[in-house]
């Protein structure tokens, strides 16, 4: 390469710098032009199945009526979406609107990330008596208990069952009289073994077996909403966990899942679909998956029944939680963001269209209307879920620890219990660990 003269070097540097500056100016002008034009919102949500298409349809109709608005989506499965959202918040690029489960809200509120929705909700004249009782619970923060999130859906647990396997065994189908004891008898009767191998499971337990059985017996992992102390070392809680463990260890009716399997391919929710599990105590959120015309259950007849009751009270109790929408305070368009949230979530239209495709709409009229017509009427007992939601469901307890922290810890520790470890010792150690984790969170966030 021949050497440059000083003049040539300076000339080339000058041209290059000018070109860079010019391109920067053009970009800035373009951005200014863009900002003066349509309002641009970003909506983030975890999704599954056909939910993205439902979002696009509703939003498409909305933007047709509001041509000054453009809306972009950020969709992912739950854990992918939460990872992305965390990274976006760290970078300050979070969407305007997001769908979440409420366990993240205490931290988000503590860090001042959430837009206060109290005035919007009041102006919308939301009549909370028309919604499921616990749907709006845990969404208020601060000394003035203002609302910072609105519920799209709620859910509960039911007893899914394979009618064919019951008929084959000549067993009585589950009904509202079932208690824990009836469940044990039926699970044992419907478990089939060939030697040491179980070829048909009497019972599977899906999401968080310990929580479902605790709720059944009217006990809780924490001392209340905005929890302050773990209850795992309480005798009545230990007793409920023992009753859950008995299915795995004493009766041998229930397969142990890989921890945190949730909706994984080898979780009980999905194993039930394989057809060799007579019953599955699991979430109402599986309704759309089981009834999906293309990928749902086709090989056997199935139905849902009330979660078995506590023998002492005769009342079934289950646990559920909402999917909620929040608006980040950082949004440049709080009014427009609220209008979209109102359309998607608070209005009957949104509850019917979006809510009924995600889980059970939190608005009763939508649950009893569209959701029942589109999904529940395909089941033999269409009212089970609605009655359960209305009368027999508690909310998951929320606090400064999110579910990824405390429920994962519980799953890890109780996995030993499902394999025969001492329940009392494990639960006592677990209570100490959870209180320790909560203490660390309080040190950071206060409260």
């Amino acid at each position, binding site marked *: *390469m021949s*050497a*440059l003269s000083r003049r040539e*070097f300076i000339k080339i540097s000058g041209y290059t710098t000018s070109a860079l500056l010019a391109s920067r100016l053009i970009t800035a002008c373009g951005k200014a032009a863009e900002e003066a034009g349509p309002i641009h919102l970003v909506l983030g949500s975890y999704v599954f199945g056909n939910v993205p298409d439902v979002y696009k349809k509703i939003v498409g109709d909305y933007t047709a009526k509001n041509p000054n608005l453009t809306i972009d989506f950020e969709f992912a499965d739950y854990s992918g979406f*939460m*990872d992305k959202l*965390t*990274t976006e*918040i*760290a970078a300050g690029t979070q969407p305007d609107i997001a769908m979440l489960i409420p366990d993240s809200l205490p*931290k*988000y509120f503590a*860090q*001042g*990330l959430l837009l206060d929705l109290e005035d919007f909700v009041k102006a919308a004249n939301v009549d909370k008596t028309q919604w499921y009782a616990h749907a709006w619970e845990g969404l208020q923060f601060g000394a003035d208990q203002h609302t910072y999130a609105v519920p799209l859906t709620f859910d509960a647990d039911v007893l899914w069952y394979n009618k064919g396997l019951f008929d084959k065994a000549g067993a009585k189908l589950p009904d509202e009289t079932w208690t824990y004891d009836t469940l044990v008898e039926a699970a044992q009767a419907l478990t089939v073994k060939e030697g040491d*191998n*179980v070829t048909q*499971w009497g019972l599977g337990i899906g999401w968080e077996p310990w929580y479902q059985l605790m709720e059944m017996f009217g006990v809780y992992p924490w001392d209340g909403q905005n929890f302050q102390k773990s209850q795992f070392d309480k005798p009545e809680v230990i007793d409920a966990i023992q009753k859950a463990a008995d299915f795995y260890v004493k009766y041998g009716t229930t*397969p*142990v*899942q*890989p*921890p*945190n*399997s949730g909706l*994984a*391919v*080898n979780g009980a929710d999905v*194993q039930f679909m*394989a057809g*060799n599990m007579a019953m599955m105590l699991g979430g109402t959120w599986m309704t759309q998956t089981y009834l999906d015309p293309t990928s749902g259950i086709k090989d056997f007849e199935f139905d849902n029944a009330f979660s078995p009751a506590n023998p002492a009270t005769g009342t079934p109790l289950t646990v559920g939680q909402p999917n909620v929408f929040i608006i980040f305070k950082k949004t440049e368009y709080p009014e427009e963001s609220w209008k979209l949230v109102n359309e998607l979530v608070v209005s009957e239209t949104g509850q019917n269209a979006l809510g009924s495709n995600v889980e059970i709409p939190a608005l009763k009229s939508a649950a009893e209307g569209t959701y029942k017509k589109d999904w529940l009427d395909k089941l033999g007992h269409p009212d089970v879920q609605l009655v359960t939601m209305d009368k027999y469901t508690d909310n998951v307890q929320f606090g400064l620890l*999110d579910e*990824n*922290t405390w429920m*994962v810890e519980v*799953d*890890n*520790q109780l*996995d*030993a219990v499902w*394999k025969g470890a001492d329940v009392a010792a494990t639960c006592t150690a677990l209570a100490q660990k959870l209180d320790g984790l909560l203490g660390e969170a309080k040190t*950071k966030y206060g409260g």
Partner: protein
Amino acid sequence: MAGLAELGRAKLRWGRPRRGMPFRRMPRHLVIENLWAFGFLALSLIGLVILTLGPILVSFYLSFTDWDALGAPNLVGLRNFIALAHDKTFFRALWNTIYYTLVSVPAGMIISLALAMALNRSLRGIGLFRTLFMIPVISSTVATALLWGLMLDPYIGLVNYLLQLAHLPTSGWLTDTRMAMPAIILMSVWKGLGYNMVLFLAGLQGIPQELREAARIDGANVWNEFVHITLPMLSPTTFFVLVISIISSFQVFDQTWVLTKGGPQESTITLVYYVYQTGFQQLRMGYASAIAYVLFFITLIVVMLQWVTQRRWVFYQ
């Protein structure tokens, strides 16, 4: 990099190379040539600084904070590192990572070397076999892990079904605390075989045939040839495969995330998975950064040990 080397050498000749000698300025044409070199390197260097060095330095700073990715970081001094010293899960993850490395690396290297030796011949169709072994390497780890998860399902999985057919005892595999990590190691070794095989194949094909012929003339059998010719001549390749395999094994994450989420009972939690769990799930980014730095130093020490000891067993021609 050539520019830097040139600059280094230039410094020896230009400037004041020895006491008492006159100071000599670098010729102008060399200075301009070096500036051009830096100019061409600038793009890569900017990318390196912004996308690699920058995050490394920021992560180092974050390891001394309690940052949760939601608000501003607050300095907490050595609190994260002190907490690590008392964190049972951290030591569990460290042990699991070491266990994974101690089993998967030798197993992977031995099997891939055996494969490479078997495929190091000119036969019709040998290319097909080499390609088949590379297919797991180029497949997505997540997709592969999902497949293995189904195969290893204790109730509906293919592996237990075949074991039952053969009247052999079945296993809980990913639900069994004793078998979950071996199952993950099995999957990882299977997936990585093709890559190491290709490296060993290249190394084998670089061994001069004259050496083998001379050994045979001197009466060496197959084993003698392998131990005294093949292994020593292959030692540079073996060293390279060993280093990258160990570094890669310390970073195992995808398999545990897809298959077991670190369970059952933390029997498969690894250091990188623990970093992810504390950082992105528990929003303890400062603590996660501290774990990442401990992992970095462990990896650095191990690689440096390998580098120092290579003189004893690596023979370069």
